[in-house]
């Protein structure tokens, strides 16, 4: 087995005649038999990358090799080696769960009997056997996601692309899906998944890259990313923005990382949570300022973004939303 299942080199993809660069020179290598994560906020280029690697979209520049085949020159060979579960559970609502899977089996050019047997097996494996002959329009969000993932697995592909597989799912369905993905990797499947959740990347991904504005801004393991950031976020709340500004002057030097001030809230990324909190309290106490609230929490994707880019993940969304390609707007609408 080869070392890397996916090798992408300097991938560029532009939209609107070059006006918008969704991907701006992304290179990555996905080791075979692992879960590899693409982490980033909406509009960072994750979905575009998955579409290029799954031959749905052609890159403007660059080269991508998937399962040993070039996505531009040998798309049919690539398609025989991959499964894709897109961002929105792509199930046909007018078909039953079984019919959806069987259709995908036929379109993978499987023998009829094998397509049927495999569809039945997957419905059992994914806890959908009782609903196999119900129209998918009656399925819950979690069931649709599971069926969508099952559809990507009908042909038993060695490489799986999952675009935000758990976005919009309740905690239980999310746990279920994580367990399924872990099971697949144990069986030897290579998974490339995109996510907005640090928790998800943390749980599943051995390695990950962080995308922002179509560029890789960090890569490594999830614990490397977190430790580069500091382990805890100290959140201080005040009753006025003036108090917050004044306090910032007092406590900014507690952390080497820049503080984030949002109105009456200060967020400070620190290495030793309790000790830093105690130090901040001492300093505030010796001033006239009254603290309205204090909290310690785990760092989130937002914090990583703030640390790496100096701006919040949501700011990105606003910028990119204006530039969104027509297709992305259509998708956003479909989600509503």
């Amino acid at each position, binding site marked *: *087995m*080869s*070392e*890397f*299942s996916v*090798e992408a080199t300097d991938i560029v993809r532009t939209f609107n005649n070059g006006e918008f660069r969704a991907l701006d020179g992304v290179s990555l*290598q996905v080791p*075979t038999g692992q879960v590899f994560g693409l982490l980033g906020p909406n509009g960072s280029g994750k979905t575009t990358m998955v*579409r290029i690697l*799954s*031959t*749905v*979209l052609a890159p403007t520049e660059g080269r991508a*090799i998937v*399962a*040993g*085949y070039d996505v531009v020159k040998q798309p*049919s*060979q690539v*398609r*025989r*080696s*991959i499964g*894709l579960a*897109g*961002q*929105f*559970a*792509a*199930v*046909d*609502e*007018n*078909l039953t769960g079984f*019919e959806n899977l069987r*259709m*995908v089996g*036929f*379109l*993978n*050019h*499987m*023998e009829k009997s*094998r397509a049927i047997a495999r569809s039945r097996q997957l419905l059992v494996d994914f806890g959908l056997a009782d609903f196999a002959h119900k*129209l998918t329009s009656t399925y819950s969000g979690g069931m649709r996601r599971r069926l969508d993932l099952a*559809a990507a697995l009908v*042909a*038993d*592909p*060695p*490489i799986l*692309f999952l675009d935000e597989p758990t976005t919009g799912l309740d905690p239980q369905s999310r746990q279920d899906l994580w367990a399924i993905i872990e099971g697949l990797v144990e069986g030897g499947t290579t998974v490339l998944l995109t996510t907005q959740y640090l928790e998800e990347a943390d749980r599943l991904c051995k390695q990950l890259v962080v995308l922002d504005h179509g560029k890789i801004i960090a890569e490594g393991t999830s614990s490397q990313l977190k430790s580069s950031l500091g382990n805890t976020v100290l959140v201080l709340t005040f009753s006025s923005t003036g108090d917050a500004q004044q306090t910032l002057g007092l406590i900014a030097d507690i952390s080497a990382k820049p503080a984030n001030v949002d109105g009456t809230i200060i967020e400070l990324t620190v290495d030793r949570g309790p000790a830093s909190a105690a130090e901040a309290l001492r300093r505030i106490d010796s001033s006239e300022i009254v603290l309205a609230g204090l909290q310690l929490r785990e760092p989130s994707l937002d914090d990583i973004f703030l640390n790496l880019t100096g701006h919040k993940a949501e700011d990105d969304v606003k910028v990119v939303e204006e530039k969104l390609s*027509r*297709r992305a*707007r*259509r*998708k956003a*609408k*479909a989600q509503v």
Partner: protein
Amino acid sequence: MTTTPLTTAESTPHQGSVSLAVRDVITLARRNLLALIRVPTALVFMVIQPVMFVLLFRYIFQSLGAFTQGNYVNFLVPGILVQTTIFGAVGTAIGLAEDLQRGLIERFKALPMARMAVLAGRTLADSARNVIVLIIITGVGFLVGFRPHGGFFDYIAACLIMLLFAYCLSWGFAFVGLAAPNSETAQAMTFPLIFPLTFASTVFIPLYELPGWLQGFANNQPVSQTTDAVRALMRGTPIGDSVWVSLAWSIGLIAVLAPLAVNQFRKIA
């Protein structure tokens, strides 16, 4: 660190690419036809409008009988049939726009299936649906006095001519469906195309009853030619060259529209 091809799923039976492509088209056409059975209301709504047209126009415009060499019903029903098959082809735009919205096109594009199959499966299923609608409207026509004097085989030929025309046109609507931001817009985008074509035509009234300035357009556009061919075959009147003109339009339209739709399919994601 070069990568060597992994063994791919040994799922492909040994078949030629053409027979595999045909299988893909059948799979997708079947999938689209299943939707007709699963959501029968869609078919009901498709049929309601032409049925109302037949019933209303048959009684409102029957005074036109004097101009249409005989009773107006025999003139009207072939026209309504042509109009209905064209409106049916609009379903291609709506269906593809919905598939795109739901992410199904993305899924299909990542499968090792024939690229053409998504469009061919959709357009063929829409033609099959048109056959059902044709049968229903013909039945309703008979109930209100439609009596075609052409032979049975002429009637079949007439149906094939309009089904072919609608099929070729549906490739244009496939392009619209894949270019529209959503299915509602896709439907709205087809109106400026089909309303002038079906109303500024010989579908409802004879050419010489149209305003003079409109006659030039109406006489030379494909819907009128197809309507004239269908009407002549059904009524057993001289067909002139309308059959050939209609067939030529059909071939010309698909030759232009199919590459347009396929190109749009490749472009989108």
